[in-house]
Every structure is written in C-alpha cells, then in structure tokens.
C-alpha cells in the first residue's frame, strides 16, 4: 500500500509557519528597537540635565560649569554648615529635598534641636541637598530652591535660607516655589547683598553643582529624603528629637 501523500498537508501548514515567523520577527525587532529607543531617550534626558549649566547671567558656560558655592566640600559635594566644629564631635549628615513634605515635617520637629547642636558646635552638620523630586514632580523647583540656598551660602546664609524653604513649603506637593517666593526667602534669611544673590539666582550659577550633588548622593546609596546619619550611621526617625541628640551624645568622643 502506498504511503499517503503528505505534500498537501505540508503545503497547508507552511504558510502559517511562515506567517508566524514574519510576525514574530517583526514583534521581536519592534520590541528591541523600542527598548533601545527608551534607554537612549532616558540617557539623553539625564545627561542634558547634568551637563547644561545655565550660561546666562553674564557668566561663561565654562566657569558656571564648575562653580562651587562657599562652604561646599567640593564641586558636587555637600554643604558644611559649621566647619568650626571640634574634631571630637560626630558628623551629622542630613539629606533633604526642598520639595519633600516629610522633610518639612522633619524640620518642624527636629529643626530646633539640630540648630541648637550647630550653635553649640556639638555636631558637625553636613547638608546634602537633593533634587530628585524635580524628576518625580516634573518641575524644576527643587533645583531652583537649592540654587537659591547655594547663592545664599556665598553670603553665609545657607542654613537660614533652607529654613525658610521648609517653613514655607507649599501645602500641596508639586506646587513648587515661584521665583518671587525664592527671592523673599533670601530677604528673610538675611542675605546682605540682595543684588549679588539675585544675579546668582537668575543665572542658576550653581545648577551644575546641584545636579552633580544629586548624582553623587544617589551613587553613595542614599535614595530617599529625609535621611539622617550620625557618624555615618543612618538613624531611624521616630518623631522624637532625642533620636538625634542621643545618637550625637553616644558618638561624641
């Protein structure tokens, strides 16, 4: 008995197989293409953020690119509020984003305690101003507020300026800080040369420094605010200012 001819059967399945291959190949290529496009787009956005210093304000892009505010440890480094603290007291690192609501709460609860520690030089306060909420909230208020604080730092009023920022944070997260409000903070913080501050703020002189600081902080493993460290150890905040004073006392040599 002859074997049944399979040619018809093969012909019936062959186009379907080919279709599957073509469609499958297309979907695969499209997927890979879209993923690479997204990665490219993301990297492009990120580097645009970190490499475009504001060249306006009379400064050349080259000098603005590495401009470092007074009191910062280095370009892209945190702000040392009381460099005169003696060597036996611990470093108190505070990580805050100007638009972070919990940071405003933190300042309300712990602010006076931190201020007292600074005034007594009982701890060396190092402030890492973060700005990632600009990305989350799709605005630029954190960078502008941070720049305002760094411009105030040039006149020794960084800490006072930041206090104004948190005390006047908008009730609704994402509202941001209008330019004239940032100017009023400079006045209330007691910045002496308002004209110098205004020109520094208009040119966003410390934008590159601010963005570099954000990247450095993220790379160091801090991804959230507020984060508080005493002598390098992250504190668990319970809402009691003694969290900080106890840790500082324990770490004082």
């Amino acid at each position, binding site marked *: 008995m002859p074997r049944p001819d399979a040619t018809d059967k093969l012909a019936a399945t062959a186009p379907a197989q080919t279709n599957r291959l073509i469609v499958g190949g297309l979907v695969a290529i499209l997927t890979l293409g879209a993923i690479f496009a997204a*990665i490219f787009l993301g990297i492009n956005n990120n580097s645009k953020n970190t490499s475009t210093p504001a060249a306006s304000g009379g400064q050349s892009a080259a000098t603005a690119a590495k401009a470092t505010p007074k009191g910062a440890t280095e370009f892209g480094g945190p702000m040392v509020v009381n460099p005169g603290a003696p060597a036996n007291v611990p470093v108190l690192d505070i990580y805050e984003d100007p638009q972070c609501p919990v940071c405003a709460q933190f300042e309300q609860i712990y602010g006076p305690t931190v201020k007292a520690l600074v005034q007594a030089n009982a701890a060396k306060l190092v402030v890492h101003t973060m700005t990632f909420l600009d990305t989350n909230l799709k605005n630029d208020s954190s960078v502008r507020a941070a720049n305002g604080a760094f411009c105030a730092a040039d006149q020794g009023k960084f800490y006072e300026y930041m206090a104004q920022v948190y005390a006047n944070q908008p009730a609704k997260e994402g509202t941001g800080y209008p330019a004239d409000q940032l100017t009023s903070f400079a006045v209330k913080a007691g910045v002496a040369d308002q004209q110098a501050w205004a020109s520094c703020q208009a040119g966003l002189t410390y934008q590159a420094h601010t963005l570099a600081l954000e990247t450095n902080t*993220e790379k160091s493993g801090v991804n*959230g605010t507020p984060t508080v460290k005493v002598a390098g150890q992250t504190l668990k905040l319970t809402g009691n200012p003694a969290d900080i004073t106890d840790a500082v006392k324990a770490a004082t040599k």
Partner: protein
Amino acid sequence: MTRRRRLDLLGTVLRLVLGGVLLVAGALKVTNLGASALAVRAYQLLPYDLAGYVGYGLPVLEIIVGLVLVVGLFTRTAAVVAGLLMLAFVIGISWAWAKGLSIDCGCFGGGGEIAWGRTAYPLELTRDVALLATAGWLVRRPATAYALDARL
C-alpha cells in the same frame, strides 16, 4: 461546554489579567522615565548606570508584553517573558524587604523611599507571585480562546 473549551476560556481570563496588569504598569511609568530609573535605583540592587537602563527600558518592555498577551499573540513566549519579569520583581522586592529598605515597589509608577510602616511588601509579593503563577499556567497551556494565535 467541553472541558477543553472551559480551560481555553480560563486561559483567556488569565491572559487578559496578566497582560492587562503589565500594560497598565508600563503605561503608568513610561510617561516619566526619569522617575522610573529612580524607582529602580531605590532598590540599591543594581549599579547606578545599569539601574538607569533598566528603569528606562522596563516600562516599554512591559507595555509590549502586555499588549501581545492581551491580543493573544505568541502567548507562550510572552508568558515566559512575563514570568521572568515577575520572578525578577519578586527577587527585587524580597531583597528590599530583607535589606530593611523602606521603599515603594514602584510597580505602577511612583516608587522610591517612603515612611516606615507604609511599606507593603507582603501585598506586593503576593500579587507578583500570583501573577508569576498565572504566567506559569500560560506557559504550560498557552491555548486560549479569542487569541490571535489561532489566526496566524
């Protein structure tokens, strides 16, 4: 209704659930790739640059796998990819929990650090394990009703 038809219909439901969740999760994140990268970094699991690439690429992958599942194309392959994604999510969330991080999984946008006591690791893990099981079912039995697979 035959047993086979019932299983096909069950497969359709599972396919729509898995695909729908992926589609929504991807769509909510794709509009803000920067935030997506931050959410991945908050796990402190991948190096800085790699975490960025994952953050940028993941929402797109989720959307495409979700779409393909919803219309029922290449159900088995798509379910394998979806299952691998869920496995990665389960590992990531477990890592964050074990490490004592206080983050939102960022599964549907958002993400990053949140207040202590606001974490939802058990819920997030339960959901992803359930979706992993769904993907497993579709890998074993990819035949479903109303799928474009049948027309190819």
